[in-house]
C-alpha cells in the first residue's frame, strides 16, 4: 500500500475517534516533556559544576578543615563564609612534593543590592596575581595584561552601572577590565580583585564608606593547587594534609561533592516521576489502542477481505501511533525546553544547585532524543493489539 494511502487511512482513523486520539497525544506529550525536562535539569546542573571546576582550574582546592561545604557553597551559590586559614599555610602547601603552583584566594563579604551587578547579591574574591593560574591566563589572552591597583574582572552578571565609568564599592572606584564566560554558578556574580586592591579598598573604606570593608588579617579562604605533570593529585593531597593538618584538600573530581549528591538526589526523584508517568502512559495507551482495535475489528476484517495483508493492518495502526506521538511529543519537547529555559533562574533558587542551559547543538540532540523515545513508546503500545488483530482470521473479525 502506498505511503499516501496508508497515511490517509491512519488520519481518518485518528479523526474517527477524537477523544482517544487526544488521550494518546497527551500521553506522548507527558512522556516527551518529562524526559526532556529531566535530562535538561540534570545535564544543565552537571555542565555547570563541570564549568565551575574548569574555571577554578585547580587540581586540588585546599580549604580549612570542616569548612568544605561552606567553601563549595560560597563558590557555587554565593552563600557567605567566614572560614579562613593562616596565610602561612600557603607557603607550606607550595613546598609539598608534586605541587606545581599554589595560589590563595579570599572570599570577601557578599554585597546586597550593589548597583554594579544585575543580580541582587554579589561576591568579591581577592586573588594573588603572582601565583594565580586561573584568572591570569584568561586576562593575558582576553585583556592583554595583568590587573593593576583599582582594577577588577567580573563574572557574567557584573557590569558598570549606566552613566558611570567605574564601579563604586565602599566608597572606592574600581574599573572593570572584562567579564568571564558564564558557568551558571556564583562565579558569574563574582568580582575578582587582587589582594593589593582589596587591602587598599579596606583601608580607604574606613573613612569613605558607611560600613567599612573588614578583611581579617593574615587570612585566606582557600588555596588553589596545580599539581606537576605526571603527579597523582591524591598523593599530593595526602602530602598536603601531612604538611598542614588543619586543612582539607579536595581533589578535583570530588569537588562540589555535596552538590553532586544533591543533583543525584534530584535526578533519582525526577527519574521516579518520569518512570511512573511512562509506565502509566504506556498502560493507558495500550488500553486505548486495544479499545480502538476492538471497536474497529469488523472494519479490519473487511479490509483484510479486500486485500490488506497482516502487514498492512499493523502498518496502518503504527502509522496512526506515530502521527499521534509526533504531534503530542513535539508539543511536549518544545514546552519542556521552553519552560526550563524561561524558569531557569527560579529552578536554581528552588533546587539549590547551579544550572547552565545547554548550547543549541546539545539541545537539538536532546529534543530529537526525547521525541524519538516518545514515538517508540507509543508505537510499542500500539504494536501488541495491532499484531493480535492482524493474526485473527478475517471471518472471525467480521463476526458479530
Amino acid at each position, binding site marked *: *500500500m*502506498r505511503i499516501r*494511502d496508508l497515511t490517509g487511512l491512519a488520519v*481518518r*482513523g485518528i*479523526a*474517527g475517534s477524537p477523544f482517544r486520539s487526544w488521550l494518546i497525544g497527551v500521553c506522548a506529550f507527558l512522556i516527551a516533556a518529562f524526559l526532556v525536562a529531566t535530562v535538561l535539569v540534570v545535564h544543565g546542573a552537571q555542565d555547570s559544576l563541570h564549568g565551575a571546576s574548569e574555571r577554578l582550574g585547580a587540581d586540588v582546592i585546599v580549604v580549612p578543615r570542616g569548612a568544605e561545604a561552606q567553601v563549595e557553597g560560597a563558590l557555587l551559590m554565593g552563600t557567605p563564609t567566614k572560614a579562613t586559614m593562616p596565610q602561612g599555610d600557603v607557603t607550606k602547601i607550595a613546598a609539598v612534593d608534586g605541587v606545581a603552583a599554589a595560589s590563595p584566594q579570599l572570599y570577601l563579604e557578599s554585597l546586597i543590592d550593589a548597583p554594579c551587578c544585575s543580580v541582587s547579591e554579589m561576591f568579591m574574591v581577592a586573588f594573588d596575581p603572582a601565583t594565580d593560574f586561573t584568572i591570569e591566563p584568561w586576562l593575558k589572552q582576553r585583556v592583554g595584561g595583568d590587573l593593576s591597583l583599582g582594577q577588577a574582572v567580573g563574572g557574567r552578571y557584573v557590569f558598570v552601572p549606566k552613566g558611570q565609568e567605574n564601579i563604586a564599592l565602599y566608597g572606592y572606584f574600581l574599573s572593570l577590565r572584562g567579564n568571564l564566560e558564564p558557568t551558571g554558578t556564583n562565579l558569574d556574580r563574582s568580582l575578582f580583585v587582587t589582594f593589593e586592591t582589596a587591602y587598599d579598598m579596606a583601608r580607604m573604606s574606613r573613612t569613605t564608606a558607611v560600613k567599612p570593608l573588614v578583611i581579617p588579617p593574615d587570612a585566606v579562604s582557600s588555596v588553589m593547587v596545580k599539581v606537576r605533570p605526571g603527579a597523582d593529585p591524591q598523593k599530593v593531597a595526602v602530602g598536603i594534609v601531612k604538611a598542614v593538618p588543619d586543612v582539607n584538600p579536595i581533589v578535583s573530581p570530588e569537588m562540589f561533592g555535596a552538590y553532586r549528591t544533591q543533583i543525584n538526589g534530584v535526578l533519582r526523584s525526577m527519574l521516579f516521576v518520569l518512570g511512573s508517568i511512562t509506565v502509566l502512559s504506556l498502560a493507558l495507551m495500550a488500553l486505548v489502542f486495544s479499545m480502538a482495535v476492538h471497536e474497529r475489528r*469488523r*472494519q479490519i*476484517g*473487511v*479490509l*483484510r*477481505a*479486500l*486485500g*490488506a*495483508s*497482516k*502487514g*498492512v493492518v499493523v502498518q496502518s495502526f503504527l502509522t496512526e501511533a506515530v502521527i499521534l506521538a509526533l504531534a503530542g511529543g513535539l508539543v511536549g519537547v518544545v514546552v519542556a525546553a521552553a519552560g526550563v529555559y524561561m524558569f531557569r533562574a527560579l529552578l536554581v533558587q528552588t533546587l539549590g544547585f547551579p544550572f547552565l542551559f545547554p548550547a543549541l547543538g546539545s539541545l537539538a540532540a536532546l529534543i530529537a532524543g526525547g521525541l524519538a523515545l516518545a514515538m517508540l513508546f507509543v508505537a510499542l503500545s500500539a504494536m501488541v493489539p495491532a499484531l493480535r488483530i492482524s493474526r485473527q*482470521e*478475517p*471471518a*472471525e473479525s*467480521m463476526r*458479530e
Partner: protein
Amino acid sequence: MIALRGITKTYAVPGGQTITALGGVDLEIGRGEFLVITGRSGSGKTTLLNVAAGLAKPTGGSVLVDGTDLWSLSDKERSLIRNRRMGFVFQFPSLLPSLSVLKNVTLPLAFGRNGTEERRARGTELLELVGLADRLTSYPRQLSAGQQQRVVIARALIGRPEIVLADEPSSDLDEQTESEIMELFARIHGETGITILMVTHTKQLVAYGTSHVEMAAGGVLRDRAGSEGAPAE
C-alpha cells in the same frame, strides 16, 4: 474455478467442547456459474463461503483456486488473490464511514499500484453501472441501506475480479430493495459472465441463479437440485 475438497471446520467453545460448522464438504464452483447456496441459520453456508474465500482456514481439507491450494500460500499471496481475483458483498454495512462513496469503491485498488486518475475513472464507471453516479462525494451515512449495498457491489467489481462472493447481501433490506439488488446481480452476471457465489436463507432468491445447493447441519443436503444447465468447467 474454486474446488473445495473434504472441507471440515470446527470451533472450540468455552467449556472444552467443539462445534462442527462443516463436516466434510465437497463442492466445485465452475467459471461463469451463478451458484446460490441456501440453508437455515447454522447450516454452515456462511462458513463455507468464508473458507472458499480464504477468510477462514479449514480444520481439514483443501481449497483449490484454479488448481492452487489457497492455504499453501503466504498471507500476502492470499491477500493478493482476494484483492485481484475476488470481490465481496457482506450482509452487514461494510463501507468505511470516514471515506466518501468514491473512495470506498476504489479502496481495493489502494492495495495495488493503480494511479489516482485510473482509480477515479474506474470508480466513476462502476457507480454509473449501479445507478449512483450522482453520489460520488456523499458519505455512507447519507445513503439508504439499498444504496449502500449498491456501492458495496460496485466496490466488489472494482478490480475486475473473476468471482464475486456475496454473503446474505439482501437480508437486511425490504422486499422491493431486495429484488432491485438481486436484479442488479442478475444483470451483472448476464452482461459480464462473472462467476457469483451467493449465500442466502431466502429460497425465493434461487431463481436469480443458474444453480442451487442446499446445506444443512454442516453438510450438503442437495447438490444442484432442480437447477437448469450443468455448471461450466
